[in-house]
């Protein structure tokens, strides 16, 4: 891989240990994946925030790195944190403090684009939250690989990333055409479609025909589910996403999705209300429009929920919901908006054992943790809930 004079000096340790280690990571990845050079990035988004996920090992690494004077050189935000008992929270706050010391904005969300960290078309990024990667690549037309925690941190520190994978035009072309012969109309329909395809497709770039999402949250949700049950980081939707016009190269294989495929996913997550002890909305973190919808549904329902409703969101979105009165309405009906955290990365098994959610991504993870799961649209959940 070609390195500039300055990059060579960083690699040789002339600018200190932290920059050297960061550069070593980038150069090694560049060599592994055949990058010709490094390219500047506009922002970074870092996974490996929950203490549940990184543990003492990750914390030790972050502490050593921060102590060595590591500082990010581009705008950088974090993935959501975990929530747990006092002992857990002490460690969790320490992790956040280590990231803060490195110059990272302590805005912990899987939807950074709803505020703090909004890329534009064509921007190169180093993001690591899988649903945010999918959103940035597919819906915004920005360019990022699926980074791991350490590689996005290394890119944030150096301000560059190796030029391979989804940074290159040729890898952004579709590899498979998806025709949708099913009714896909609601949030959960999109969720189920994404969940199904994540399982069916490999390392593909799907091109969708026949989808007409009525709002962007539906695509956000589909991408998140595809990235959770599979590893899809980029998709195109004919007539909808910004790169679809040049996404189709040659003759491609076509996969048809039928009504039964969508139904099968919904049926797999249809546990009875008697097994459910909380409702979760906001995976990926909710938009203001999603929060507004929940507040309106609760008002229509007219009586408080017997089990708690949690909405997870970024703190920028929560602040808007507070200002507009949605938070107050939601709290009146036994709901709460919880900023900065993600239940999927929290040790909450035992506190709760059954979740009702509109998120295919959540459904996938909570089932794997041994929870009972009910997957349905927010409207049905709120109207049917005890």
């Amino acid at each position, binding site marked *: 891989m070609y390195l500039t004079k300055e990059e060579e000096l960083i690699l040789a340790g002339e600018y200190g240990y932290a920059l050297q*280690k960061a550069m070593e990571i980038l150069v090694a*990845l560049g060599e*592994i994946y055949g990058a010709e050079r490094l390219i500047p990035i506009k922002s970074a988004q870092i996974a490996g925030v929950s203490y549940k*996920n*990184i543990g003492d090992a*990750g914390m*030790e690494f972050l502490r050593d790195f921060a102590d060595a004077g590591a500082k990010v050189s581009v705008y950088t935000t974090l993935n959501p944190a975990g929530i747990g008992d006092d002992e857990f929270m002490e460690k969790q706050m320490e992790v956040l403090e280590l990231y803060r010391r490195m110059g990272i904005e302590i805005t912990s969300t899987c939807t950074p684009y709803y505020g703090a960290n909004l890329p534009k078309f064509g921007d190169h990024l180093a993001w690591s939250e899988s649903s945010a990667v999918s959103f940035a690549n597919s819906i915004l037309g920005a360019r990022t690989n699926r980074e791991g925690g350490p590689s996005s941190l290394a890119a944030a520190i150096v301000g560059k990333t190796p030029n391979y994978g989804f940074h290159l035009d040729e890898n952004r072309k579709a590899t498979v055409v998806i025709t949708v012969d099913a009714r896909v109309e609601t949030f959960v329909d999109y969720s189920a479609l994404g969940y199904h395809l994540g399982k069916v497709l490999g390392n593909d770039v799907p091109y969708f025909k026949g989808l007409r999402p009525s709002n962007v949250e539906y695509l956000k949700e589909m991408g998140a589910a595809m990235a959770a049950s599979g590893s899809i980081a980029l998709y195109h939707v004919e007539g909808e996403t910004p790169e679809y016009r040049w996404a189709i190269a040659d003759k491609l294989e076509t996969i048809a999705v039928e009504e039964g495929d969508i139904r099968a996913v919904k049926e797999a997550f249809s546990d009875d209300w008697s097994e459910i002890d909380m409702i979760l909305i906001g995976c990926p973190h909710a938009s203001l429009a999603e929060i507004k919808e929940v507040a309106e549904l609760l008002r229509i329902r007219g009586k408080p929920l017997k089990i708690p409703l949690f909405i997870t969101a970024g703190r920028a979105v929560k602040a808007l919901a507070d200002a507009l009165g949605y938070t107050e309405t939601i709290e009146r009906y036994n709901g709460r908006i919880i900023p900065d955290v993600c239940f999927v990365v929290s040790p909450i098994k035992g506190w709760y054992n059954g979740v009702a959610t509109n998120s295919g991504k959540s459904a996938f993870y909570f089932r794997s943790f041994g929870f009972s799961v009910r997957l349905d649209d927010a409207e049905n959940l709120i109207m049917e809930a005890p």
Partner: protein
Amino acid sequence: MRLQGRKIVGGKAEGELVVSQKPLSFLGGVDPETGIVTDAESDIRGQSIAGKILAFPRGKGSTVGSYVIYALKKNGKAPKAIIVGEAETIVATGAIIAGIPMVDGVDVSKLRSGKRVTVNADEGLVEIEE
């Protein structure tokens, strides 16, 4: 036997081989306190990788595995060197942050546990005692 691979992380090491013929997950697959492999699917389950030359076809599992490799090093239980068939992000990043010599592009199916081996990662070279 001399095998030519590619440098991922430079350095030299010498020691006893421990070879997994299956992909290895570090998060949940290796105990960072003891260096013992705990991955239920692993063919080297129960063996220690501490102070050994560890060979396996490729990494798998969570990217948090990189931090487990770092923790192994901090706890004095890391392998002296890592040999893989195909490097990927998790193990490569772990080896870099932990400073463990690492070579890829080696046909791991030719390697056997218990053999003495010399790794010159700077040259991408692996030499196995006959």
